[in-house]
């Protein structure tokens, strides 16, 4: 009986211990986010949101613009690669190599991708830091993510859906495009939004490709002019890069306040996208499958 009792006490202590840790983690997360947002709000003066060199408006625009462009480039590439891996690649040495490549790309430190981007897109082309180099580097970071999401999604689809499509006389490609991809659309959308979230926070890959400063005037919207915000061959710094710059190179006396604001803005952006990803995923799923199908899916998952 003694041993049992000891075991029971140990079990209770462990349970309490684990509860404490779980609560600590939640508290840590909430306090980090709340504190950062609080500091951002505390240091807010309208000047910081302006679209001038003093403010963060330019950086916010750059961040959204660059992430949008990189998703436009990486989404098709990633989805196609995922389709290849899931549907067309036969188990062979070649496929293994492709898989290894994807994993290598996925786990490369972003600073290494950044210096590669610097080498190829800036040094070898003899150009200065520009947004396009940054966008391409970001795409290199996003493609493996999207490939994995697509491949996993396609692999998890019920085979019966595929077979049903074939039975109706569709070719493989038609099946993929008209049946399978729509089936995994919620996952794809979630994956894309999460990749965008990663792009927001990326700085190490951008400091040597897209540069540390921006010089734009928002009255000029002609994409071919170098001071236009739309021009993709100008230097552009994002919010994350700006924080790094403010900490290490800026001398204005309010640099810490601006950095606080930038950090708060980034966190809020990431939150919005994260929650948005979940909600969008759920909404699309509901629309495509219907709520009763979701309920039965949930049931089968639990079992």
């Amino acid at each position: 009986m003694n041993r049992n009792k000891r075991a029971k006490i140990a079990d209770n202590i462990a349970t309490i211990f684990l509860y404490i840790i779980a609560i600590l983690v939640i508290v840590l997360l909430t306090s980090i986010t709340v504190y950062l947002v609080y500091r951002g709000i505390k240091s807010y003066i309208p000047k910081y949101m302006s679209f001038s060199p003093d403010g963060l408006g330019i950086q916010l625009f750059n961040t959204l613009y660059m992430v949008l462009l990189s998703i436009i480039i990486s989404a098709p590439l990633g989805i196609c690669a995922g389709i290849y891996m899931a549907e067309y690649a036969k188990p062979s040495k070649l496929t293994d190599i492709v898989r290894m490549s994807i994993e290598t790309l996925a786990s490369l430190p972003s600073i290494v991708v950044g210096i590669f981007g610097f080498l190829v897109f800036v040094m070898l082309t003899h150009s200065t830091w520009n947004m396009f180099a940054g966008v391409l580097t970001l795409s290199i970071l996003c493609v493996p993510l999207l490939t994995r999401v697509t491949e996993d999604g396609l692999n998890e689809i019920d085979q019966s859906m595929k077979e049903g499509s074939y039975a109706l006389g569709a070719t493989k490609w038609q099946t993929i495009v008209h049946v399978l991809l729509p089936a995994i659309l919620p996952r794809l959308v979630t994956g894309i939004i999460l990749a965008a979230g990663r792009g927001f926070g990326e700085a190490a890959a951008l400091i040597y490709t897209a540069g540390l400063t921006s010089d734009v005037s928002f009255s000029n919207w002609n994409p071919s002019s170098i001071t236009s915000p739309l021009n993709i061959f100008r230097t552009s710094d994002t919010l994350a890069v700006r924080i790094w710059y403010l900490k290490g190179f800026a001398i204005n006396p309010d640099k810490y306040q601006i950095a606080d604001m930038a950090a708060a803005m980034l966190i809020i952006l990431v939150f919005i996208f994260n929650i948005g990803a979940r909600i969008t995923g759920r909404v699309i799923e509901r629309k495509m499958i219907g709520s009763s199908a979701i309920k039965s899916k949930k049931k089968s998952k639990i079992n």
Partner: protein
Amino acid sequence: MKKTILGCLMLVIFVSTMFTGCGSSSQASPTEQTTSDSTSATSLATDSATDPTIADAATSIVATTVSTSSVSTASASSNSGTSNSVSKTSTSTKSGSSVSTSTTQRVSDVKSSVATGAYLSAISLSLSTSTSGATIYYTTNGSNPTTSSTKYTGAIHVSSTTTVKAIAVKSGMTTSAVSSFSYTFGKLSGNITADGSTALQPLLNLAAPMFKGKYSAVFSGSVTVNGGGSGQGLTDVESGAVMVGDSDVTVAQAGKGFSNLVDHQICVVAVAMVVSSDVANHFGSNSISMSDIKKIYEGKITNWKDVSGSGSYNKPIMVCYRKKGSGTRTLFETFGTGEKFDENASYVTNNDAFIFTSSSADLQSQVDNNQGCIGYETLPYAQNMRKLSVNFGSGAVACNYSNVDNGSYKIWGFEHLYTKGTPNATVKAFINYVTSEDFKSTIVANGYGLSSDVAPSVAASHQ
């Protein structure tokens, strides 16, 4: 909208420069030729201030080789350390002095009725100097004027891109510094990219919007200025990554590997010894000797109580240093301690008291936020920091540009803009703008010095 703003600006400048006095041109023989190029001033006016006392002040200053004080007509804010920082509304008048013997006055700078900038239609400008009786000679081909250049007799008409350089001479007085005015006509295409010295970066960051404003009629590109250190500036301009490389050191000082780089000196920057506020409070008005600074960076003195002048402040010294490519550090090593700092030496790597700072901004935040720190910082960054006077062997010398000019403060260097070969019209316009007479007040107001004010022999030793 832009044109009306430009028009008003021109009107204001025109009206304000009308008030700065017109000297009559009379025969005078020069007593000395100045050899510095383009930048100089003995009296300054801010863009908007119309100070009638300048003329009086200029003619009443007698320069001596020893005096180091600068007379300000408005109060210059001084930190409880020992530096003077010139605020935007004050004017300081100094006279350059030749090292040899005389205490001759210097003719005040030539002023133009039309400021440097971009213009769309032909302009007609008049040159003047506040020193009465001085003769003005000018060139329009960019070369430095001498007494054999064209004498100024009446309005000069300019209708194409020209740089007008002028001097004023008067017998019995030192020739004025060369004043440079650049007028640009016709569109400037392309963009301007610059990077390099972080010491020069604040000035260029100011110059960029000012240049874009003044030249908005002809220039619609972007001007981007980045940091990275003098080494990177030279590298990037050499490789063509940027058009202008900013550097605190000359190509010769930086080492080989650079070919065909053209130097444009634009100003002077001094390096101050900055300390944390607790140290500064204990020093009061005492100075720190250069030999002590040397020993601190050699690791031989580790506590402030062993430094003379510190009032026996018992606190470990935290020594801040920059990375090898830093122009500030190179200036400190070359003209301060005279020896290279070896950050791989064991007394540095094993000692937590030696703190590495990756940039000027980083050093500033280290020194300001901690106690017992010492570091070296260029004056533009150090304007609001606590600085110590340095004793190089013959008395305490405060870190300011008068002491740089007469050679008593030794830790300083010229700021250079390097271009690969001759710059194109757009870059040339920018360089002309920052070396023009009209930009000088910005230079002085932000912690830099004018290279024309430096005594020639002192300048020669720092090339």
